[in-house]
């Protein structure tokens, strides 16, 4: 039940799309946290408040508006679809929705760590002749990496279980754009409880594995706290 071709295709899409979305969030989340903590610019406070928007917006609304933005006649779709980038009803759409819902995790885990980072160490590195890039890669990055990874894992875990935003934008085509939580939902609609449980157990096991990993990461990152 848990290993039919359709189920395997759904796992593959769920995990791959979640992984890509989490990587995108790790990169842009780090950038966003850095910009918010280190720079002064007009609109910084507004931006800081807006980062939590994906947490506050109901997932159904997120899916609805994203699918309309990336559809052929949407604000973004009318430029992207002629270029061959179809965001609605494709696996790319799944990645887009998952990137949206996971966005705040990396920013919010990284922000306090960046704020507490001692500038003196960077100053020391600069005094000793290190370039800014060298200071960042060998002084700053190692101390913020655990927080980035924790945020990455949180975003990944959230993405794997996400349902509401994806069902609107993916089109839910079996073997192509169907995610595991949707397949569980389908099995339930068919009153196929055994099938639903089998799929749910796989998802649950994965969630618990990630939960364990997040706990380890948090222990690791608290090494740097004082």
């Amino acid at each position, binding site marked *: 039940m848990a290993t039919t071709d359709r189920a395997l295709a759904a796992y593959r899409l769920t995990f791959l799309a979640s992984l890509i979305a989490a990587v995108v969030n790790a990169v842009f989340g780090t950038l966003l946290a850095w910009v918010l903590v280190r720079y002064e610019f007009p609109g910084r406070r507004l931006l800081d408040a807006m980062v939590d928007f994906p947490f506050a917006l109901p997932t159904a609304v997120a899916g609805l508006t994203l699918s309309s933005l990336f559809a052929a006649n949407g604000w973004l779709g009318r430029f992207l679809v002629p270029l061959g980038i179809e965001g609605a009803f494709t696996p790319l759409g799944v990645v887009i929705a998952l990137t949206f819902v996971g966005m705040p995790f990396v920013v919010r885990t990284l922000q306090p760590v960046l704020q507490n980072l001692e500038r003196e160490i960077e100053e020391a590195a600069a005094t000793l002749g290190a370039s800014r890039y060298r200071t960042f890669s060998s002084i700053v990055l190692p101390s913020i990496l655990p927080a980035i990874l924790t945020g990455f894992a949180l975003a990944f875990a959230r993405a794997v279980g996400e349902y*509401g935003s994806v069902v609107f934008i993916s089109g839910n085509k079996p073997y192509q754009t169907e995610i595991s939580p949707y397949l569980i939902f389908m099995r339930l609609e068919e009153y196929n409880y055994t099938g639903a449980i089998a799929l749910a157990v796989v998802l649950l096991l994965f969630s618990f594995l990630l939960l364990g990993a997040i706990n380890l990461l948090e222990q690791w990152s608290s090494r740097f706290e004082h």
Partner: protein
Amino acid sequence: MIETPTKKRDEAVGKSQRGTEESVAVKWILISVALAFCVVFLMLPLVNVFVQALAKGWSFYWAALTHPDSWAAIRLTLLVSAISVPLNVLFGFAASWAIAKFEFRGKSFLITLIDLPFSVSPVVAGLMFVLLFGLQGFFGEWLDARNVHIVFAVPGIVLATVFITFPFVARELIPVMQATGTEQEQAALTLGANGWQTFWHVTLPSVKWGLLYGIILCNARAMGEFGAVSVVSGHITGQTDTMPLRVEKLYNEYNGQAAFAIASLLALLALVTLGLKTLLEWKQARDYRAASAASIPGGTP
């Protein structure tokens, strides 16, 4: 607050700070990329909701909201949140009180348990309730014999929502309660206050912002929950459709504008939530500043 001394020093040092800051060009490129990302992923989706909702004019918008089935969905959503938020305030307070103020066996297990709803897929959460209370479920026959309907009815929706929103209040309260410690309560008890007075005059004021913060987040999620509610609701139009479920139904009926009309209310809720959250953070920071300026330990106004 933490930045200020560093910033002042940087300004005083002037040009010699070059080693610890990126060049102006790099700085503005980073800011632009961050802003571009936020415009595409935050601003556009938000503005789009309202533009689409009003695309056919105010009268269509109003008609979509006041449609009997949509109105029923709005009422059900308000009812579900009115039941689940107070329940979770109660549970959250009890759990965080126990964790922050007492030592007992299985405490770390309780902490893990509180986070459980965050790590379980909403669909799996809904499935658990169907397996427990559905007709073929664990308690199904027993409940059916007594004519109690939980799954595919309002009680199931409330149960699923309570489960999903359980962590919000507790997670906000635990760090605040841990930070305040038990000294003030002990002092109040020593001075002759009874348990209830201590709770009302000492404990509650010290955690009020954290509590409000938790309530706001809990309410936003309770009104917006989709996955878990979708599994247990049964989608009976006018009876067990909450607002997010109504959005999905209208969308699947190719009635996009009406779907966006309901969605605009939920987006408004998200904006109000964000606004209140920012306000509370600001107030909390101001309180801490006032308290530390007065240098009376824990002196909350």
